């Protein structure tokens, strides 16, 4: 790209040369010499620059490493800093005297130390390294797109921007917690079972005495309690408790409703952070932890197991779930297109240039026959054919006879009347077609963006033409394009009919089926924790309630953890407004509507609490005290005192 500085210099040099040669050759030959000298130098600088751009830049090698404590890692932990190291290998033969390299930082992360942008002078064979420190506050996946390169000559005449795409996705696992700190410290038992084994009040072969009972034929003689037998004068046998592991299955709602909001700050992130803490604490205690993630379309199940490998697998799944983008039917393309264009220009400048993404001049012409009313103009243009019909011909002849000023003007007038409809049609045809040239910017941008989106998502070859005219296809693919690059985009909460888009009864059915399946496979001491957004789904809750009743009927424990919108006050802190209040100004009306929204939300929460409370399920909010401790406390109860003998 020639900069303004370059253009002004070039124009002035050409002007000097032309003046020197053409206009004033006899008086100002030096102008010509000066013009030739300046143009020669400019041409030389241009050649140098183009060689750097076309030959040297493609040879540039940039590598990225993620390091924690000087070790290269493939994943990082939320809330912990890590180092990003960039290694640059210069081209072998050509120098790049001025290059600005910027490593694009993922939007979800925060930069702590160091610089991700450096101006460098690369000589052939040079190897450079720079580092900077990042932190990702929430679990998810970090996407490093690559490096932005800006190249300029030393005078500032030429400028070239490109992007070295090297997309890397690094999972950000939920933060490691201190599992011991989350467990109760009060002493309940004299003899603690080994880790991962818990007492169950059922007859078994454990070490703790459960009960004494009368001897039944077949009981082993070693179980006879001799002293009570002597006292009672009949054979009494000892029964011991059973020792079993506790299983905890986490059901996590990953539907689009909980994905709404900026990455790392949405409901899904909160749910996953708590679920990860529970999983880690349980795993530290050698309890078995399972995971079921569900959304509107299906479930992903990991059976309960223990061990560090299983835990890391769980955390990986949770991290990937946390980065899932929300998708809905957008109703406004403009914000999506703006984000898409910005991203495409930033990351795909090579695919946006004219060499590979052309804008032929003819593409702006609007074909009349493609419009719904095009046939009318076509009919108008075909009207001269009616001249073969004698009646029409006679009509035109009469008209020509009436309007011609003299006899000799009659034939030309007749001819004019014959071709007049054709000329009018032609005029409308041109008028319709030329309208496309009035808005070339929007058409060009849309075509270029559509082409980049189609190439990036590897869509079929007809996708560009389709996205050019089909708004719905364009919006759908733009959402996919932005989601692929982890760019948050606006989503309409309500569709064109005013219906809330993310109310999903289907996910309740899927959750109910998953819970029933887990209960069917369950043994003793099962804890099911449902991390789900079930507010305002009153009518669809029945299948889930049946599944919960079944779980409770088998003496399992069930907990429900609800996500909570950040701008909603806690129920215990909310003060009800005055019922007689009538809004009179716009501000009061806005407050009134907001109060209405809060009340509706709280009412929905109370309803869910009431419904689940009836079947003995505790309902928690994610921001209610220490949810993790409450869940772990419930597991403790299962281990020690939770069950009666069946």
């Amino acid at each position, binding site marked *: 790209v020639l900069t303004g500085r370059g253009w002004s210099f070039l124009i002035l040099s050409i002007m000097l040369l032309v003046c020197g040669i053409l206009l004033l050759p006899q008086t100002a030959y030096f102008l010509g010499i000066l013009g030739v000298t300046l143009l020669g130098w400019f041409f030389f600088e241009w050649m140098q620059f183009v060689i750097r751009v076309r030959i040297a830049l493609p040879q540039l090698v940039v590598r990225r490493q993620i390091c924690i404590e000087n070790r290269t890692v493939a994943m990082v932990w939320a809330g912990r800093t890590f180092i990003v190291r960039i290694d640059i290998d210069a081209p072998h033969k050509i120098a790049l005297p001025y290059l600005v390299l910027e490593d694009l930082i993922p939007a979800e992360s925060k930069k702590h130390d160091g610089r991700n942008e450096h101006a460098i002078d690369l000589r052939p064979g040079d190897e450079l390294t720079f580092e900077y420190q990042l932190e990702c506050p929430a679990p998810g996946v970090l996407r490093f797109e690559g490096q932005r390169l800006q190249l*300029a000559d030393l005078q500032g005449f030429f*400028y070239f921007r490109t992007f070295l795409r090297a997309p890397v996705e690094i999972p950000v696992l939920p933060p490691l917690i201190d599992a011991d700190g989350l467990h109760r410290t009060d002493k309940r038992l004299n003899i603690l079972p080994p880790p991962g084994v818990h007492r169950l009040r059922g007859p078994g072969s454990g070490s703790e005495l459960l009960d004494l009972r009368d001897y039944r034929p077949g009981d082993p003689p070693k179980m006879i309690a001799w002293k009570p037998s002597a006292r009672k004068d009949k054979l009494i046998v000892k029964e011991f408790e059973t020792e079993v592991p506790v299983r905890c299955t986490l059901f996590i709602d990953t539907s689009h409703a909980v994905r709404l909001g900026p990455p790392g700050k949405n409901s899904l992130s909160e749910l996953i952070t708590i679920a990860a803490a529970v999983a880690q604490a349980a795993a530290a205690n050698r309890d078995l932890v399972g995971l079921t993630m569900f959304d509107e379309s299906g479930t992903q199940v990991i059976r309960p197991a223990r061990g560090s490998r299983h835990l890391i697998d769980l955390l990986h799944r949770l991290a990937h779930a946390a980065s899932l983008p929300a998708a809905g039917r957008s109703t406004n393309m403009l914000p999506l297109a703006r984000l898409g264009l910005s991203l495409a220009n930033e990351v795909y400048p090579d*695919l946006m240039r004219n060499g590979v993404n052309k804008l032929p001049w003819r593409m702006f012409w609007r074909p009349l026959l493609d419009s719904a009313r095009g046939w009318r103009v076509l009919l108008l243009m075909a009207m001269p054919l009616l001249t073969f019909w004698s009646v029409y011909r006679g009509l035109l002849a009469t008209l020509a006879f009436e309007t011609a000023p003299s006899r000799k003007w009659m034939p030309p007038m007749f001819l004019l009347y014959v071709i007049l409809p054709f000329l009018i049609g032609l005029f409308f045809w041109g008028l319709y077609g030329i309208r496309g040239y009035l808005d070339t910017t929007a058409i060009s941008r849309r075509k270029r963006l559509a082409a980049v989106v189609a190439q990036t998502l590897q869509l079929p070859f007809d996708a560009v033409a389709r996205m050019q005219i089909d708004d719905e296809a364009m919006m759908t693919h733009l959402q996919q394009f932005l989601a692929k690059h982890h760019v948050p985009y606006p989503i309409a909460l309500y569709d064109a009919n005013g219906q809330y888009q993310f109310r999903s009864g289907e996910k309740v059915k899927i959750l109910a089926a998953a819970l029933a399946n887990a209960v069917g496979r369950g043994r003793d001491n099962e804890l099911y924790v449902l991390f789900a957004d079930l507010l305002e789904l009153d009518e669809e809750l029945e299948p889930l309630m049946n599944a919960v009743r079944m779980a409770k009927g088998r003496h399992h424990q069930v907990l429900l953890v609800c996500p909570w919108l950040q701008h909603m006050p806690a129920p215990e802190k909310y003060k009800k407004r005055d019922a007689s209040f009538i809004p009179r100004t716009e501000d009061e009306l806005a407050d009134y509507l907001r109060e209405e929204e809060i009340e509706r939300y709280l009412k929905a929460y109370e309803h869910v609490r009431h419904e689940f409370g009836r079947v003995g399920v505790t309902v928690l909010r994610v921001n209610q005290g220490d949810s993790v401790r409450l869940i772990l406390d419930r597991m403790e109860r299962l281990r020690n005192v939770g069950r009666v003998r069946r």
Partner: protein
Amino acid sequence: MSEKPISIWREPAVRNYLFTGASALLVVMLAHMVRDAAIGGLLAVLVAVPGLVGRWSASPILFLLVSIFPILDPQGMLLIAPEYMGRGRDPVIPGLNTQTKNAFDITDLFLAAGMLCYLIAQYRLLSLMNRSFPPDRVPFHRPKADDESPKRPAKLVREDEIPFALALSSAFVLGGQIVWLLIWTFTGDDGNRSMFIGQTGAFVVVVWGLSVGLLISATVFGYLSMRNASHAEADMFLRDGVWQETYREQQRVHRWRIWNRARKGQ
């Protein structure tokens, strides 16, 4: 670019360019004085100094524009006595060199070298102090609040940069003289049988030379660009080719699909 503003007096690289530019201006001034154009030369230098010292980005362009005047009319006679112009075919202006094809004049060599050196130093100084390339105008891209003009850091200036620039400017001054002679060699006088005659002929030669040079370079670099294309670029090139051939037909088909969808929706 969080580079702090460079203090002009503290950076050796900036100082060196400043002194190079100032020396070049001195040469220009002296050359103009030899050509009896002291006032015009002084004016040109006065326009150039704010660019060197005060980062005035319009300075080099104004310097070139102002320099035209003392070159055309060294003693300013056109201003003082405009009636000299237009009398006869070759107006005789005091101090004017009337040799049309003159080259390798020692004063001219120094003047051209001084001007080119000044321009190189001035533009590089502007890159170091003002802005090295234009800010990106990405559509809908909101610039950050702390975005500064991108400057070339002074630490990137190599030690051999200024000597190389001086050598380069000398080479281009000599090259310019040679090319100028070549232009007039290809161009004959009115009486000759040369293909290109007179001023127009010289102009045609220059335009032809520039066009051929640009055409060859564009072809070579276009070929290199295709040869070094990435997989994504090649894929895009092919997709674009298909689109260009068939987009009207495809759009027609998709219009029917939209119509069908709308009808089903109703």
